[in-house]
């Protein structure tokens, strides 16, 4: 009957369309557990979680930006700068670590606000504004640290530890930031406004959404998420390094896009981004377990990113 065709096919299709990346992650995990006996162990999986955490937190921030049809290339550099500032204020300036942490988050926020001001009021293309910020933040990280790593305060370094000896704190922070991102996107005014702005900025403006103000919120969030990612990374390494997180912005963008967001805006979800970040981490982990050379790893990851997005595009076209 025609009703069957109507109800069944779209159900399967929309399941695929919603969770395409999740399907890819499952396939990848199954393949790797068949190929390597070490993959499907608790220790290794938690390890993957830790590997994914920094990228995922950066990527949650990037999700906000990409949904508004923008781009933020500065997140890796802002992460490094925030971590350096934390370590410096706590050790060199001798402030208590909670104050230092707040200062670091404020630095991330400030970088985001500067990006947003350049984009919203200076009308710079996001690519250019955040590329400039990438240079500035990285440079400042080098200036403050005078080019060498700074030890993180002990209290903050515990962020890199585990709870009860097995549950890594970075994974918890990742989950927490993911939930915050999801709630902001789905349940708050700024979140819904991001989708509208990315979908059709003019329609959003004529519907009374204060587009410039919402862009400030968007890039500020991206900056704060970057600062959190930087702190998590530095605590894992027990020291803040000025060159840390170089190139992570591209991983973050890749995770967001693999997770189903569109660079042309209006689409994207926190859960998809999490899956995207996990795909990247699982892939790296698996290739390591299979002792693939790091040169080939880059090739494989490049191909996988292209394939993931290609599949997504094809699926969407099929759905039309």
């Amino acid at each position, binding site marked *: 009957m025609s009703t069957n065709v109507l109800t069944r096919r779209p159900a399967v299709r929309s399941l695929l369309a919603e969770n395409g990346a999740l399907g890819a992650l499952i396939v990848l995990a199954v393949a790797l557990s068949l190929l390597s006996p070490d993959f499907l162990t608790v220790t290794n999986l938690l390890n993957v979680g830790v590997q994914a955490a920094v990228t995922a937190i950066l990527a949650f921030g990037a999700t906000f930006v990409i949904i508004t049809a923008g781009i933020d290339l500065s997140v890796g550099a802002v992460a490094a700068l925030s971590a350096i500032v934390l370590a410096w204020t706590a050790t060199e300036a001798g402030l208590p670590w909670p104050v230092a942490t707040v200062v670091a988050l404020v630095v991330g926020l400030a970088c985001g606000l500067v990006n947003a001001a350049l984009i919203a009021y200076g009308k710079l293309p996001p690519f250019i504004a955040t590329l400039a910020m990438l240079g500035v933040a990285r440079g400042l990280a080098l200036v403050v640290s005078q080019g060498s790593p700074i030890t993180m305060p002990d209290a903050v370094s515990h962020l890199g530890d585990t709870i009860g000896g097995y549950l890594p704190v970075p994974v918890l922070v990742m989950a927490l930031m993911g939930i915050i991102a999801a709630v902001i996107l789905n349940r708050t005014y700024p979140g819904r*406004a991001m989708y509208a702005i990315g979908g059709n900025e003019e*329609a959003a403006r*004529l*519907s*009374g959404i204060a587009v410039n103000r919402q862009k400030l919120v968007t890039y500020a969030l991206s900056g704060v998420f970057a600062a959190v990612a930087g702190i998590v990374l530095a605590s894992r390494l027990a020291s803040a390094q000025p060159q840390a997180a170089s190139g992570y912005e591209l991983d973050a963008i890749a995770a967001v896009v693999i997770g189903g967001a569109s660079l042309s805006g209006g689409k994207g979800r926190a859960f998809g981004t999490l899956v995207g970040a996990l795909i990247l981490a699982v892939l790296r982990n698996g290739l390591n377990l299979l002792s693939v050379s790091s040169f080939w790893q880059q090739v494989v990851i490049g191909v996988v990113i292209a394939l993931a997005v290609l599949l997504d595009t094809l699926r969407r076209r099929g759905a039309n």
Partner: protein
Amino acid sequence: MNGAEEILRVEGLGKTFPGVVALDGVDFDLRAGEVHVLLGENGAGKSTLIKMLSGAYQPDAGRILLDGSPVHIRTAAEARRLGIATIYQEFNLVPQLTVAENLALGRPPRRFGFVDTRRMHDQARELLDRVGIDVDPRARVAELGIARMQMVEIAKALALDARVLIMDEPTAVLTTGEVERLFTMVRQLRDRGVAIVFITHHLEEIARLGDRVTVLRDGRSVREVPATTPQDELVRLMVGRPIDQQYPRAAGDPGAPLLKVSGLTRAGAFAGVSFEIRAGEVVGLAGLVGAGRTEVARAVFGADPYDSGEVLMDGRPLPRTNVRAAMEAGLGLVPEDRKGQGLVLGADVAENLGLVTLSRSGRGGFVDRAGRRKEAGEVAGRLGVRMSNLGQEVRTLSGGNQQKIVIGKWLLADARVLILDEPTRGIDVGAKVEIYQLINSLTASGHAVLMISSDLPEILGMSDRVLVMARGRLVGELDAAQATQDAVMALAVTEVEETRVH
């Protein structure tokens, strides 16, 4: 010319989208040298049908015959090769490119391998002359108003010299003058033997231009009748019931002034525009395309800047270019270009309907999702939006139903002065009456409406007062009794002649 020669035939055509049967067995044939009108309610399947003739969609069932033999039209290029040109309901112009570049898109004239700009502009000018609009070929399409875009779109289709020309609601955004010009062109093409498919919701156009009419209802072709069929009969075939009153305006006594505009001026667009709108009024704003009506509306609403003058709501001046402030003061604007300015096409029906009220629907910092959905469902029901559910992407709604969404989101906002720019563009006769009823209930509750429309009968039928603009100036005001088609047109053109003389 042999008028009986059949070019195109469609048999049992069907098309299903996820959750919707858009076409469910359509038969239709097209002869050389005829204008064949497709008539049907919003969402009946007209656009879907022609998209299968132009290669945009593939049918799931049935077949298409061209000159008696079955064809599979897989791409737009293939349709073009078969001699089928299409003017879509939604524009297909590249806004960032110039008019000339758009007209030559895909096949620009070349010299030594480079684009021959001079020849491209000459060809563009020739085409623009043929459709009779005064547009600089070097102007960017994004800068044109919606009516001029439509004329460029028509010129683009003419450039193809097709045997079959399909026009999906070309007159929806045109004013009387342009419609006349378009009709002259269509008649010339028809006399040269071109077969024309014409979609319109303006019933009076059918008898004037058409030869035959195929009526679609719920994805099926229900009847084929001659274009001379009386309008009442057409409505009955299309909607399934008669409509007794096309313009059910119930005017009350105007109350206190709500919106006051004085001396509004922007160089090159409009000058010295002053008017007042009182509670309970429907004020029509008439004029030719390019008269500056939309520009004034947008400036009043804060969407665009102005150089001098003042906009007052309840006696308090509104800041310039501040949509939010205008909204908070109780102004609303349904923009003319639903695709570019009214809708987030990739978002669903509920999201779009709740866009204007988004900032108000908070509950403890969080958006009240259930409440928004409920409101959206109610307004969609009131407007009779045809959709599979509130989660349907607006992109996939029919043109008329998209328009209902743009109106709906402003109904939810409950603006005290609602500016409607071409509100019934693309809306079928039955649904138009529903919208007029809604306008009546708005004004009955003390709200006011400023209505811009290129559909003069609509302006005359629904307005308590008509303002006429020409060349950026307000040239006259007529009350309902004085406002006739001739009186409005006389005002709309005289000033144009005068400014030309100067």
